[in-house]
């Protein structure tokens, strides 16, 4: 297991380095930041002079290692919009996004675990059909529209919940539901098919023949085994939550890094964009690594591979 995890750790580090390289190349080589810093009528000489001053005329790999060195010290330059270090502008918003993502993840599990199990246990019943249809619809509805529709229903018509903002816990409900429903749909479909597969295994027959109650068979024998294979997609789901946060935060004016990203793109505040992209991609790589470690713990057979 140690060898496997060591290999995965190395892969993760390479992936993170790759992410920084891609972000650096796209922003600095394809994007030409110097031209963006100067007024549109700047002369060729002025542009060249600023390039030389800021080190943009060095070979690309020299620039990249300088960028990487600065990044490791937490220096991503200033935010042109907030006149503060880009990193601290972003870090200020992290708790809001983390709260939203965790709440959404909870929503997703609270819905998908019972729904997936019921659908699998009552396979081909009407309940199963309803759950499957809802899960399919949940995967097709774009998050921004779902958010607006929930807002329309619960805030505008029923006046139960606030439309946006960050003031109270009730303000968390709609964004978390919006973000969580999509992954609930995916999880439900996955759990259902995993459960169906597991329920057909011989050890389930054995458990039943021992005279265990159906509840014990489903929860202790089937669900536990179906869950371990769900772990592998959990990483992808979390990526979906991080990505979906960008849209959900924009819809609900939630003050997290997703909304900051969209604002910074619109304001050409590229240092902030850089930090957010690297931060999100890195956390995704780290989460996937943790999921793999968990998977090793839950599923000891992987040690043999």
């Amino acid at each position: 297991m140690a060898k496997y995890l060591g290999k995965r750790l190395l892969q993760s580090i390479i992936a993170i380095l790759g992410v920084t390289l891609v972000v650096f190349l796209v922003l600095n080589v394809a994007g030409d930041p110097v031209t963006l810093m100067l007024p549109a009528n700047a002369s060729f000489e002025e542009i060249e002079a600023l390039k030389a001053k800021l080190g943009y005329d060095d070979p690309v790999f020299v620039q990249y290692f300088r960028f990487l060195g600065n990044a490791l010290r937490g220096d991503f330059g200033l935010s042109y919009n907030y006149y503060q270090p880009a990193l601290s502008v972003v870090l200020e918003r992290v708790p809001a996004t983390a709260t939203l993502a965790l709440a959404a993840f909870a929503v997703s599990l609270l819905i998908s675990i019972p729904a997936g199990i019921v659908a699998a246990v009552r396979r081909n019943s009407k309940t199963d059909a309803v759950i499957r249809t809802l899960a399919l619809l949940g995967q097709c509805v774009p998050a921004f529209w779902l958010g607006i529709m929930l807002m329309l229903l619960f805030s505008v018509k029923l006046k139960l919940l606030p439309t946006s903002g960050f003031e109270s816990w009730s303000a968390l409900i709609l964004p978390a539901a919006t973000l969580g429903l999509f992954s609930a749909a995916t999880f439900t479909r996955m759990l259902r098919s995993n459960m169906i597969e597991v329920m057909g295994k011989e050890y389930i027959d054995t458990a039943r023949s021992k005279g265990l109650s159906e509840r014990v068979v489903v929860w202790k024998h089937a669900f536990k085994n179906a869950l371990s294979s769900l772990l592998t997609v959990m990483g992808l789901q979390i990526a979906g939550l991080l990505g979906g946060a960008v849209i959900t935060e924009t819809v609900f004016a939630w003050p997290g890094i997703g909304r900051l990203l969209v604002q910074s793109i619109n304001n050409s505040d590229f240092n902030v964009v850089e930090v957010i992209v690297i931060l999100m991609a890195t956390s995704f790589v780290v989460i996937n690594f943790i999921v793999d470690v968990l998977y090793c713990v839950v599923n000891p057979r992987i040690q043999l591979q």
Partner: protein
Amino acid sequence: MISSLKKSKTGMVGVAIVLLVVLMAAASGILTPYDPAKQDLYHKLAGPIWSGGTGEHLLGTDQLGRDILSRIMYGSRVTLLVGFSGTVCAGLLGVTLGAIAGYFGKWADVVIMRIVDIQLSFPFILLALFIAAVLGRSLANVILIAAISNWVNYARLVRGEILAVKEMEYIEAIRSVGAKDGRIVLFHVIPNVISPVIVQATLGMARIITMEASLSFLGLGVPVEIATWGRMLAEGRDYMLTDPWLAIIPGLAITLTVLGVNLMGDWLRDYLDPKLDV
């Protein structure tokens, strides 16, 4: 194929929805009641016919008096154009790179699969937004973004399939009669791995359609003058209190289209790969 479709109710629904969207796109310009960009401030924010509107504008008008039905019809063109060309570009890129990685192996495989790993470190929509931020708004850029952020799935799929196929005896036989690598890959390996690619393409198209709508919604998609469903939804959001239909109608169009494409993909998977039982 038709008889298999007749057996699958959901597949029928999917194909019907997709055909409807295609017809809508084809008929825009011919059957559209109004110019989608024509403003008529005297008749702005007219409700749809079932909600206080007159028959003049079936689905009502927006805040600038533009006809919603015409805009929805024109919008379907962008949806289909981006969905289709994005999928084709992503597919071509992914299949080519995946085939190179799988068939030739060695350093080509290492390099391509490392790129795949790095790309998979970006949440999908984040990558799309990032490229959109750097490239700027245009229709061609949205298609390019769709291709760049989607090719990975095809590459992994094709690589895996090719690894399984390339050691088979019939490939050995073709090689022994003197066929070159390029010919073997193009005419003998790829045709054998094409059905999972088609299934992947349909499901990928649904993703691309949602992505285009998301980018337009965030104002980072095609230029604002072009009518798109995502853009209509973003504009309609501001009138949610008084005219909710402005946001409801385009969202419904997106959801139904994505549903149709997904249902079609599910049916295609069952049809092309009966061994798979999902």
